């Protein structure tokens, strides 16, 4: 009897393992394969004109230290810090307030945040072009209010790119923070208050710590992507602002130096991996919070 049960259980497990088949197959062929090839490619040499030669080299990584690329990296990281900081400043309170809404309002507001998130990012970008364009809506608005005497011509400037990035990445932060705050155990805050902590102290010692997973997920989904969103820099920044994403795109589509593009991608992936590692270390959780 016991043996039969064990056999049954084994068969059961076997059947469940079969379910994993398609995902394993797909993951190995179309994800592990490409990611591994990216790493291999980053150590190969570029052919004279087009394509790749199977010769090991470190040149692609050394090339990153050339002044032009180094300064692009530096600019990208500065932008990423600025964008991430602003996204936290704007998004954390939003997610927090949203989670503290009365239950009947929470659902509708959550949906209102989700809708632009799933809407074409190009449409939203296009809206900003209309706003920022020289003599566009913003210029007309400011001049009508006599706040500015002449058109600001914000399109194709640094601030326009920053606004576009914040706008594109904010929903990630809001949703991650929201799901953290919603799960929070508020009795902890009450306990802190009962023990004499002021609201500010209670926030920084209890609330912030409890919502750290959400905040960090938001940062993961903001920091590295803001260096890679080349089309925002392209469309709102003209050709004046180049991020690592733009360099990768140029290397792939125009210069055809794929190994160098691969090396840059490896660096970006390492940054993402490092942040996920830190996340797991700090929060002790395996899953990143509240993306879906």
């Amino acid at each position, binding site marked *: 009897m016991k043996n039969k049960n064990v056999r049954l259980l084994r068969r059961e497990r076997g059947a469940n*393992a079969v379910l994993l088949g398609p995902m394993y197959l797909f993951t190995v062929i179309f994800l592990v394969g490409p990611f591994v090839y990216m790493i291999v490619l980053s150590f190969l040499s570029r052919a004279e004109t087009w394509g790749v030669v199977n010769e090991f080299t470190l040149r692609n990584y050394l090339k990153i230290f050339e002044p032009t690329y180094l300064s692009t990296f530096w600019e990208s990281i500065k932008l990423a810090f600025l964008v991430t900081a602003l996204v936290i400043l704007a998004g954390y309170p939003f997610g927090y307030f949203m989670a503290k809404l009365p239950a009947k309002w929470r659902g509708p507001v959550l949906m209102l945040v989700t809708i632009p998130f799933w809407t074409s990012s190009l*449409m*939203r970008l296009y809206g900003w072009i209309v706003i920022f364009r020289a003599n566009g809506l913003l210029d007309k608005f400011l001049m009508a209010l006599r706040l500015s005497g002449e058109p600001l011509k914000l399109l194709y400037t640094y601030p326009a790119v920053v606004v576009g990035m914040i706008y594109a990445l904010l929903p990630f932060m809001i949703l991650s923070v929201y799901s953290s705050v919603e799960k929070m155990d508020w009795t902890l805050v009450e306990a802190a208050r009962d023990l004499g902590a002021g609201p500010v102290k209670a926030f920084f010692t209890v609330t912030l710590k409890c919502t750290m997973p959400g905040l960090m997920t938001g940062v993961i989904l903001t920091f590295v992507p803001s260096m890679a969103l080349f089309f925002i820099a392209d469309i709102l920044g003209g050709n004046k602002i180049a991020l690592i994403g733009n360099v990768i795109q140029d290397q792939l589509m125009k210069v055809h130096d794929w190994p160098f593009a691969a090396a840059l991608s490896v660096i970006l992936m390492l940054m993402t991996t490092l942040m996920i590692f830190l996340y797991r270390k700090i929060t002790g959780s395996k899953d990143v919070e509240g993306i879906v």
Partner: protein
Amino acid sequence: MKRKPVFSTVYLILGLLMMYLPIVIVMVYSFNQSKISSVWDGFSLKWYAELFKDRAFGSALVNSLILGGLSSLFAAVIGTMGAIGTARASLRGKGIMAYIATLPMLTPEIILGMIFLAYFSLIGLPFGMTTLVISHTAFSIPYVFMQVRARLAGLDPSFEEAARDLGAGRARSFFDITLPLILPGIVSGMLLSFAMSMDDVIVSVFVTGVKVNTLPVVIYTQLKTGVTPKVNALCTLMFFATLILVLLSALLGRIGNTKKSK
């Protein structure tokens, strides 16, 4: 003594207004008579009429629908089976596989585009619909996987055990009990996948062939070269399409939740 949360309410309202501002602007100008987008010249539907006459947009729309349909379907099958397998099978390495399968969600899109471009040319896959479907399936799987896994976690295993005790086979108990319970998760993951696919520019730009264009790729090219107000009309239509998808997805989520709490 509870204060009315005036500040937080104002903050949320202002934030939402900012989020919708660019969208509303594009929508308003799609009805503009004038060709110049900063001049209002009266109401007109002519850009919608022109849009429907445009063959390039028509074929791009068909491509996008095929692509979104196929990739969300594949993602639904692979992601659902994967989520059930991960929850129930005891197989070494399943955790790391699940991690890699959900990695596209955390990877900047340009890197996905780059690795697919390089890999597909390495294995000699011709660029076109096939490569588009594979890459879109790849970034859609995580959405289905996470949705289904969340549903499974909230599922009471005694339901299926009861069915098995009453003599239902494995397949029967799955199709009669488990599948209906996780179906809302599968469908809402699929809808999100479809919306993602309909919106994707970056990955598509890299893996599309010369002959195959998708809607977002067409819009992107126009934004870079010069926009006709037809794009406003197109974006407006796409907005309402997405709106319907999101509402459907939320509705399904609610149905599933009330079931769960009973």
